[in-house]
């Protein structure tokens, strides 16, 4: 079963259009949502949670359509961490525990307290007095303490130092060891996603340009470094992005479409991302 499935999700704002976004996140997997600023990552997450109203399309969570009152019930199974956690500044982790206990039916106070302690957060420190990293950890602790089967994280690692980011990534790994747990994570830090994700969904100007298993992407795409003259031999349909320099050409290509005999090097997700973004600029 898919933990999350989007079918032709569309939303139009003045000056921005999210068009026919479709993706499937199987249970037990982690999907990274990547894209430059304004590509529509946060809009997709808001549409999933019905924070903004979709123009068309369907959202399925745990196989259930989220239209109507369904979503409210499904939110018991979703843990969300936004780029700004959204906890009032005067609230302490201890008070937040009581608030969440009155919010989620399956709130696990013991687990939350354990995570707060593991993250080194003080029980009585007000949220407004915490650093960005501490706030994020509190949000993550809350998202993981009500038995959520799907975690949705929007730029949740962006404010964290490398050590804290590593801790969070380990926690997400741990979380997905349970086969019914899944994660959708958007981030600018593509290296984190490369380490963490099973699937990558790449959004560009409101459209999905690539949504596949990470390993398949790494197998499918490669990089060629050659002269301008050699570049002309490569069929245009094989090229997904090109960088020209006085020393030659660097191109991200589909391995299968490249003429035999040309040497294709390994291309990381981050490099591919940069190639694809810069392609039409």
């Amino acid at each position: 079963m898919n933990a999350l499935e989007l079918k032709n999700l569309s939303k139009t704002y003045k000056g921005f259009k999210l068009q026919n976004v479709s993706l499937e996140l199987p249970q037990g997997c982690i999907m990274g949502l990547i894209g430059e600023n304004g590509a529509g990552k946060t809009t997709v997450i808001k549409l999933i949670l019905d924070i903004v109203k979709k123009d068309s399309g369907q959202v399925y969570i745990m196989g259930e359509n989220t239209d109507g009152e369904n979503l409210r019930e499904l939110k018991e199974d979703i843990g969300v961490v936004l780029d700004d956690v959204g906890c009032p500044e005067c609230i302490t982790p201890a008070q937040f525990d009581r608030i969440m206990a009155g919010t989620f039916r399956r709130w696990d106070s013991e687990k939350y307290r354990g995570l707060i302690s593991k993250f080194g957060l003080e029980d009585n420190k007000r949220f407004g007095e915490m650093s960005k990293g501490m706030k994020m950890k509190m949000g993550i602790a809350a998202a993981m303490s009500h038995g959520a089967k799907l975690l949705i994280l929007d730029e949740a690692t962006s404010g964290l130092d490398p050590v804290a980011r590593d801790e969070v990534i380990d926690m997400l790994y741990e979380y997905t060891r349970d086969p019914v747990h899944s994660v959708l994570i958007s981030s600018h830090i593509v290296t984190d996603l490369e380490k963490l994700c099973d699937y990558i969904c790449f959004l560009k100007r409101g459209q999905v340009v690539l949504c596949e298993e990470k390993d398949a992407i790494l197998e499918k795409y490669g990089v060629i470094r050659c002269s301008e003259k050699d570049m002309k031999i490569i069929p245009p349909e094989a090229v997904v992005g090109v960088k020209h320099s006085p020393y030659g050409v660097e191109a991200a290509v589909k391995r299968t479409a490249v003429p035999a005999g040309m040497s294709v090097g390994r291309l990381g997700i981050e490099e591919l991302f940069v190639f694809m973004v810069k392609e039409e600029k």
Partner: protein
Amino acid sequence: MKGLLIKDFYMMLRYCRTFFIIAIVFEAAAAFLGDGMFLVAYPFIICSVIPMNLLSYDEKSRWTLYSCTMPYSRGQLVSVKYIYALIMCFACVVLTVVAQFAGAAVAGGNLSVNPGILAMMLIPVGLIPAAILLPVIFWLGTEKGRIAFYAVIVIICAFFGFLGADSLDAGSDVIKSLAMRPQVLLGADLIALALLGISWLAAIGLYGKREF
């Protein structure tokens, strides 16, 4: 909805303490000094804006967005502020009655005005600002709703500033005539409650359409 009530309770304790102190001081001053209508009414006005104040803090901290990720309906997110509007009004009624009796006891047992009548007269003052402002703020947000907020506060303060010329002690004609007809006051209270109910439904409808 229990979580929302607890959250707003914590926020009130932290951010609205001054409001409560002002309310107690004003009611005590009205009861013990026997001064004008403004002193009695002002606590109702400031306590009626507490839900709007909480909403403003919610927006500032981005709780409005975060709460939409939780298993709450938009109706519940709206309703909690209306519940607090009612609680605040009720608390002011209790405070007024207690202060008036205490003032009378100190002054030798003579009540300048029936506290029940006084409370009935002030219930609309505690409910109408919330009834007008909450849907506007739920619809437009605190930034844009601020203009409506100030307009309502200025109108109410000006109204009671004007009434303040007739002191309670002197038994103004307005109060005396109304005190003779408690059914008029009860009618006003019921109208204020009905307005709050309509406002609640409107706020749910408007907030339901709002996007963040």
